[in-house]
C-alpha cells in the first residue's frame, strides 16, 4: 500500500467516525442482521422438522428491511465521503424505514427518525422515544385481546393509552417544527403542561421532554447552552444509552399501565385447564405448572424488580451519601470513626450480609430491601467521601466560607450538589446489580415471598422444568438480563456525559 493510499484510508475512517448517522446506520445494520438470524433460526422447528409460517413471514420482513438498511448505510457512506453531508434524497429514505415500525424493529425506527431530521435537539429525540414507548405499550397491552378474558378496566385503559399515543404524535410533529437548538416557541408551554400530566401513565420520556421544554422556554433569550441541555445532548447522541433508557422507561410504563390493562388473576390464580402450555397467542410466553400466564407474571414481576432495585439503591445512596459527605467534610476524628465503622460493613460481601440479615428477620420484600441496602452503604459512602474531599478544596467553597456561610449551608448548598455526578453514575450502574441480587435471593428462597410473581421466583419454578419446558426458565432470565443491561447501558452513557475527562 502506498503512503497516499494509507493516508486516504485514515482520513476516510475519521470522516466516517465523525458522522453520527453513519455510526448509527452501521450499528442498526448489524443489530438488524443479528435479529434476522435469530428469527430465521426460530422459524424452523427442529422438533417438527417443518417451518413455522408466521415466524417465517416475520423473518422475511426483517430480512427485507435489513437489506434496505444496508443499502442506505452504503449511501450514507458515499455521501459522507464525497460531500461531507448527507444528501436530502438519502434522508428521505428515513420515511421508508419508518415502516419497519410495523415489525417492531425498535433500532430501525430510532435510526429512521434520526435520519429524517438534520438537526436533532434533545427535545426531538425525547419526543421520538416517547412516541415509541407509547406505541410499544399499546402493542404489548393489546396482546391481552387474545386472552379468554380481559381485565375490567382494559377498554378504558386502552382508550387512555391510545389517546395519549395520538397526543404524543402531535407533540412529536410540534417538536420537530418549533424547537431548535437554542429556542422554543413560547406557545409550546401549553403543550408542556398536559405533557407532564400524561407522564402519569409511566412514560418518563414525557416528563423529561416537558421539563426540557420548560427550561428552554424560560432561557429563551439567554446566551449559551444550559448544563441540562448539554448533558442531555450528549446522552441523546449515545445510541446504546438511549436504548437502555428506552427499555427502562418501557418497563416502568408497562408496570404502571398494567394496573389498567393486565389482569392480576391471570398471573397468580391457578388454572388447571392450561397447565404447562407452550407459547401461543393467548399465552405469548406459555403457562407454568399451575396454569398461570407467564407473560402476565413477567409483566407483574417487572414492578417488583423495579421497586426493589430502585429502593435498595436509593436508601444506601442517601444514607451512604450523608455519611460520606459528613466524613469527607469534617475530616479527622469524624472521618476516622465513620469510615472505620463502615469498614466493618465493607468486610462482609453484600450478598452474604443480606443472607445473614434475612436469616435473622425472615424472607419478605421489606427485609430484602433493607438487607440489600445495608450492604451497599459503605461503597456509596466511600464514593461520596472521595468527591467531597476533592470539592471541599475548590475556591468557591473558600469564598462561601469567607462570605460567612455556615458549615451545613456550605456542605449541602455548595459541596454536595457538585459531588453528585459520580454518585448518580454509580447508582445507575448498581441498580442493575440490585435487580440481579433480588432475583438471586428469591431464587434461593430468601427474597420476595414465593407467591408473588417476581422474576427470581418465576425462574425458580422454571428451573425445575428445565428439561421438559425450558422456556419457563429462559423468558424470565431474558427479562432480567434486558433490564440489567439497560441500566448498565444508561449508566455507561451517563458516565460518558457527566465525566469531564471524556471531552
Amino acid at each position, binding site marked *: 500500500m502506498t503512503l497516499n493510499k494509507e493516508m486516504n484510508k485514515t482520513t476516510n475512517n475519521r470522516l466516517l467516525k465523525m458522522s453520527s448517522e453513519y455510526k448509527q446506520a452501521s450499528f442498526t445494520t448489524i443489530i438488524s442482521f443479528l435479529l434476522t438470524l435469530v428469527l430465521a433460526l426460530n422459524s424452523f422447528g427442529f422438533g417438527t422438522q417443518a417451518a413455522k409460517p408466521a415466524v417465517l413471514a416475520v423473518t422475511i420482513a426483517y430480512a427485507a428491511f435489513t437489506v434496505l438498511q444496508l443499502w442506505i448505510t452504503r449511501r450514507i457512506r458515499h455521501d459522507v465521503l464525497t460531500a461531507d453531508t448527507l444528501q436530502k434524497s438519502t434522508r428521505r429514505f428515513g420515511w421508508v424505514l419508518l415502516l419497519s415500525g410495523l415489525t417492531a424493529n425498535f433500532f430501525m425506527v430510532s435510526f429512521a427518525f434520526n435520519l429524517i431530521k438534520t438537526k436533532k435537539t434533545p427535545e426531538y429525540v425525547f419526543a421520538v422515544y416517547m412516541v415509541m414507548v407509547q406505541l410499544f405499550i399499546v402493542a404489548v397491552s393489546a396482546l391481552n385481546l387474545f386472552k379468554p378474558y380481559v381485565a375490567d378496566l382494559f377498554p378504558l385503559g386502552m382508550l387512555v393509552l391510545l389517546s395519549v399515543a395520538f397526543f404524543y404524535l402531535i407533540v412529536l410533529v410540534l417538536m420537530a417544527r418549533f424547537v431548535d437548538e437554542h429556542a422554543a416557541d413560547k406557545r409550546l408551554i401549553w403543550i408542556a403542561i398536559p405533557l407532564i400530566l400524561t407522564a402519569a401513565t409511566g412514560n418518563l420520556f414525557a416528563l423529561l421532554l416537558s421539563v426540557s421544554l420548560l427550561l428552554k422556554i424560560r432561557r429563551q433569550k439567554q446566551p449559551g447552552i444550559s448544563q441540562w441541555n448539554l448533558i442531555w445532548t450528549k446522552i441523546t447522541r449515545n445510541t446504546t444509552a438511549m436504548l437502555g433508557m428506552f427499555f427502562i422507561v418501557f418497563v416502568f410504563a408497562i408496570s404502571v399501565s398494567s394496573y389498567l390493562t393486565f389482569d392480576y388473576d391471570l398471573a397468580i390464580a391457578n388454572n388447571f385447564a392450561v397447565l404447562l402450555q407452550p407459547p401461543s397467542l393467548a399465552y405469548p410466553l406459555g403457562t407454568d405448572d399451575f396454569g398461570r400466564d407467564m407473560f402476565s407474571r413477567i409483566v407483574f414481576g417487572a414492578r417488583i424488580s423495579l421497586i426493589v432495585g430502585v429502593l435498595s439503591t436509593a436508601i444506601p445512596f442517601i444514607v451512604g451519601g450523608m455519611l460520606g459527605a459528613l466524613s469527607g467534610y469534617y475530616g479527622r476524628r469524624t472521618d476516622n470513626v465513620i469510615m472505620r465503622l463502615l469498614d466493618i460493613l465493607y468486610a462482609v460481601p453484600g450478598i452474604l450480609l443480606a443472607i445473614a440479615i434475612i436469616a435473622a428477620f425472615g424472607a419478605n420484600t421489606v427485609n430484602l430491601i433493607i438487607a440489600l441496602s445495608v450492604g451497599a452503604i459503605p461503597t456509596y459512602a466511600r464514593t461520596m467521601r472521595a468527591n467531597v474531599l476533592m470539592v471541599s478544596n475548590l475556591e468557591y467553597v473558600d469564598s462561601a466560607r469567607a462570605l460567612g456561610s455556615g458549615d451545613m449551608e456550605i456542605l449541602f448548598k455548595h459541596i454536595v450538589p457538585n459531588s453528585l455526578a459520580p454518585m448518580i453514575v454509580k447508582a445507575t450502574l448498581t441498580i442493575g446489580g440490585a435487580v440481579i441480587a433480588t432475583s438471586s435471593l428469591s431464587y434461593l428462597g430468601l427474597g420476595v415471598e414465593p407467591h408473588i410473581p417476581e422474576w427470581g421466583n418465576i425462574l425458580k419454578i422454571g428451573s425445575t422444568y428445565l*428439561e421438559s419446558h425450558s422456556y419457563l426458565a429462559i423468558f424470565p432470565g431474558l427479562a432480567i438480563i434486558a433490564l440489567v443491561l439497560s441500566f448498565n447501558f444508561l449508566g455507561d452513557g451517563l458516565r460518558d456525559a457527566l465525566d469531564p475527562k471524556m471531552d
Partner: protein
Amino acid sequence: MQQQAIEQRNFRFTERIQSTFMKMQLRPLYYILLLVLGLPVTVAVFVLYVIRKKDDRSNRIHNDVYTQLRDSDYYRQLSEEFAEQIARKNQFFGTPEQEESVLKQSATQAEEELHKTATTRTAEILEAQGIRKTTFSQMFQTVLGNPRFLMVSFVPGLLMYGFILLFSNFYIKYVLERLVMSVFVILGVVVLVFTILYLSPFDPAANLLGEAATQQQIDAFNRLHGLDQSYIAQLWSAVQGIATFDLGMSYEGNENVAATIANKFPVTFLLTVFALVMALVVAIPVGIISATRPNSFLDYSLMFIALIGLSIPNFWQGLIFILGFSINLELLPATYSPSNWLSMIMPVVVLGTALTASVARMTRSSMLEVINEDYIITAKAKGLSRRYVLWKHAFTNALIPILTVIGLLFGGMLGGAAVTEKVFNISGIGSYIVDKQFVPDIPSILGGVVYIAITISIVNVIIDLLYAFVDPRIRSKMKQY
C-alpha cells in the same frame, strides 16, 4: 580485618535500630508501645535523662530570655498593638465591647506571642553556644546509637528490640499494621453478625423441636447451646469460638461447626480461585486487544459481550449452561462431583463471568488512559518493539486499577458463590450458610460469614502488597510514617 567487618556490621545494626526508633517515635501509639515493651530499658534511660537534665542549661536560658522580654518594652508594645487591633475589629463589626474584656483578650494574645518569641530566641542562643536541648526521646535515641548500651540492654529490652527490628522492614511493618487493622475489623464483623442474629425474632429451639416440644425440652435446648445466657456472655463465647476454631455444635444435626466449615470451605475456595485464574487469563488479553483498537468493530463486540457478562444473573447462566451443555449436548455433567474434574468447568465459568467482564472493562479503560501518555510515545520513538511497549510500559502502569477491581470482586465472588453452589449442587460454604439460615443456626451462619470475611481480609492484604510490588510510588509511600 574480621574485627573490622564485625564492627561495621554492629554499626550498621545500631544505625538501623536507631533510625527505625526515630521514625517510630513520631507516631504516639508506637512510641507508647515501644516504651511499654522495653520497660526496663525505659526506666534506665529515664534515670539517665533525669541525671542529665540537671546540668541542662537550656531551661535556664529559656527562663532568662522570657523574664527579660516580659520586663522590657516589647511586652507593653505587643499588648497595646493587640488591644488596638481588637478595638478596630469591634468598630468594624459594630460590636462594642467593654474595656476590661478587650484588655484581657489582648493580654492573653500578647502572652502567647511572648512565649513564641522566647522559644525562638532561646533556640537561637542555644545554637550559637552549641548546646543541644535534651528531651527524653532524643536521649533515648542517642543511647540507642551506642553499641555497648545496646549489648547490655538487649536481653531486658528484647521485646522492644524485636518490635523495632520487625518494623525496620517496611514490608513487614505494612503487613503487620494491616493485619492488626484486620483483626479489629473482623472483631467488628463478629459483633455485627452476632448482633443481627441475636436480634432475630425467630426461636431456633421452637423451629427445631417442633410445636409439640414442651417448655422443659426448649429450656434444655437453650441451656445446651448457651442461648439462656446474656448477650455479652454469648457474644464473648462467639468471639472466643471464632478465635479458637471451636464454635461448638450446630443446632441442627449436632455436628461440630468448625469441622464442617473446614470441610466445606476448600471447595468454595478452589472454585473462586479457579474462577479468578480463568478471569485473568481471558479478560486481560481481551481488554488489551480492545484498548489497542479503540472504537473498532472488534472493540465494540468484545465490550458488548463483557457488558452482557456483567448483566447476566449467575443462577440463570448456570441453568442455561446445564440446559445447553448437559441436557442438550450431553457434554458436561450437570452437578458437581469431586472426583470428576469436568464437572468443575461449568461452575467455574459461571462464577467467573462477572469478574471476567469487569476485569476486561477495567483493563480496557485503564490501558486506554495509559496508552495516550507521553512516555508511551517516547518509548515508541526510541524504537522499542510494539509488544515490549505494550506489556512493559503500558500494561504495568495500567495494572493498579485492575488489581483494585480484582480485590473488590474477589470478595463478592466468594460471598456470591452460594448461588452458583446451589445451582450446581456443590456442598460448599455458601450453600451451607443458605441451608442453615432457615433454623437459624447461629453458630453455623456466624462461622461461615466470619471465616469468609477473614479470607477476604487476607486476600485484600495480599492485593495491597501487590500494589507496592507494581507501583514504586506506593512503595515509597509505605516507607513513610
